[in-house]
């Protein structure tokens, strides 16, 4: 049912990077579509103050009596007390992109894709790029980035499989989601592992910086780059062969779906229980399920996964 009133907040890890901006577009779209008479607010902390900032915004949202907070959690379990307080105050906390590990205080988690699946996809991309055999290393965001850690773990899990026996995951370094650090780390990896054929970077900043670095050093034919990236940022490198394959889900859709779920929860049109199904506008019907990737917590699985190559990247970049 449309047109009900629910003030809602979309709270990304921090402001200023493309994926979150796209999620905002999706949410805006849903906001208009659902004719929510309440206010919709896209607000976030500064990158250097992300954790404290998210906690602060969560807390103030509670005292403001917001109906729902849509959180891409960057604070790990440090957000739990604030989230619990919000829940107690009647604010629905819906996480997207990155969940609350312990799931405490969280109504449910809108998962872009199955985290286990991400691991497999990354392993597969490595497999195909390296031709089934060779060394590769990972360039992650910060050591504390919960979902990057989860995905890398999932990937290593996947790598145990027969198929990947000849793939060697030699190293993990962190680029702190900053261009220059990631760039230098990528080069350091090249020097450190002369036989490395691929840098896998499950973060949009990292993959782009790594690709740029390989390109600038004319290493693209010896060291490929792959991981999770935004087509608009990666298109050049995919076309010139530095990053032949990379994957991502659609952040606009993620924002859209998240808004839908949150709206339904906030307006009590949905309880948020296992097995509950609901209909999310243009994206069709979804089911609430128990989150298999965490000990506790519910999730709505969005999917699917798009793997971008020379074929489809240009279209997506538009």
């Amino acid at each position, binding site marked *: 049912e449309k047109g009900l009133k629910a003030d809602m907040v979309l709270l990304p890890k921090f402001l200023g990077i493309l994926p979150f901006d796209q999620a905002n577009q999706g949410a805006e779209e849903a906001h208009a579509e659902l004719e929510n008479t309440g206010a919709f607010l896209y607000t976030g902390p500064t990158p250097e103050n992300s954790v404290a900032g998210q906690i602060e915004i969560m807390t103030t949202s509670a005292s403001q009596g917001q109906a729902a907070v849509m959180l891409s959690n960057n604070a790990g379990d440090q957000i739990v007390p604030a989230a619990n307080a919000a829940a107690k105050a009647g604010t629905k906390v819906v996480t997207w992109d990155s969940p609350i590990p312990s799931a405490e205080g969280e109504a449910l988690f809108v998962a872009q894709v199955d985290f286990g699946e991400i691991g497999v996809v990354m392993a597969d991309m490595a497999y195909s790029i390296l031709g089934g055999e060779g060394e590769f290393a990972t360039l992650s965001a910060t050591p504390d980035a919960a979902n990057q850690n989860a995905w890398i773990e999932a990937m290593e899990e996947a790598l145990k499989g027969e198929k990947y026996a000849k793939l060697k995951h030699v190293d993990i370094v962190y680029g702190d989601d900053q261009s220059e650090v990631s760039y230098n780390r990528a080069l*350091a990896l090249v020097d450190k592992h002369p036989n490395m054929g691929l840098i896998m970077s499950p973060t949009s900043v990292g993959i782009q910086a790594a690709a740029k670095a390989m390109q600038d050093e004319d290493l693209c034919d010896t060291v490929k780059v792959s991981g999770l990236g935004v087509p608009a940022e990666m298109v050049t490198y995919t076309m010139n062969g530095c990053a032949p394959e990379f994957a991502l889900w659609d952040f606009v859709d993620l924002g859209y779906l998240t808004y839908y779920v949150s709206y339904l929860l906030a307006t009590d049109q949905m309880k948020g229980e296992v097995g509950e199904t609901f209909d999310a506008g243009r994206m069709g019907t979804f089911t609430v399920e128990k989150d298999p990737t965490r000990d506790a917590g519910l999730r709505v699985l969005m999917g699917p996964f798009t793997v971008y190559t020379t074929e489809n990247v240009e279209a997506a970049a538009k």
Partner: protein
Amino acid sequence: MLDKLVNRLGTNFVRITVLFLVLVGIILFFSSQIDNYLNARLFNRISISVAIIALIAVGQAMVVLTRNIDLSLGSIVGCVAYFLGGILAAHPGIPPLLVPVIAMLIGACFGAINGYLVAYLKLPAIIVTLATLAIFRSVLVESSDGTSITTASLPEWLIEFARQNAFVIGDFRVRWIVVIALLVALIAHIYLTRFRAGRQFFAVGSNPDAAEFAGINVRRIVMQAFLVSGALAGLAGFIYLARFGNITVVAGLGLELKSVGAVVVGGVNIFGGSGSIIGVLLGATLIDLLDTSLVRWALVSEFWRDAVLGMLILLAVAMDTFMSRKLLMRRNKMSDAELDRSTATTAVQSTRLVADNQAKTP
């Protein structure tokens, strides 16, 4: 003999030699730890990654020499990189040679704001730039509303420029970026050592009151310092844009502390009045070398890097302090106590004099 030499070439020479020795020591150490470490590739890597921080550090040094500090540099680099990117995306047609000029102009504008507040309104630099660090960054974020500059949107020549070599000797590739940085450093060095106007930077930092009394235009000098550091940050922003292509609002975050680090490790007195550009270059190189080498060092895990880095920086500074003290003592034939006396005196005096100025201003 040594005394004569030291005496002739002065404190800076002492500092620089010491730093250089430390640097060599580190290189030797790592080449014993990491196989195929000491080669042209190392040079290429370090030279490029130092280029940006070196530019900023030179600017920072100019400011610190006048007993001020510029903590807003990181934000300036970010702003320039971002806005320049925006401009280029909008008007790809701008003649390449004009672009760095524009960058420096934008940077200089930011510098002018700091300079005006510090030099003419006599506000303490550390407070002003701490504030502008935040203000400039928020200007960037608010004006960008979260969107980022992507490589695709930039003119081809810019991306190319970042990877063009000025010249190549064997495996040693010298990028234009590096040449620019070195040129800037050279100019700054000559200006500071050979021109009276440059020497007055030292005078002002050494004893502002005396500078005032001696008829030096302190305000102009301080203003100059901030303009230069702003402009150089702008240039750095240009290179940053060319090099990393994709610019988010976090661009340049933390560069201010890095630059201060390079400057102090480079033996510039944080209370102003003494230091040298060569030292600053060495300082910047030293930190960058440590950082990258530690990533490659198998013995320390990823998680140990910063711990080791911090301690090594401290050691480098400590060694520098010790050795230059000893050499200084031989030079002035002073006893330890006396040296402490004179050095301590000047250091304290410097801070106090400034404090006095603050008191006198109203």
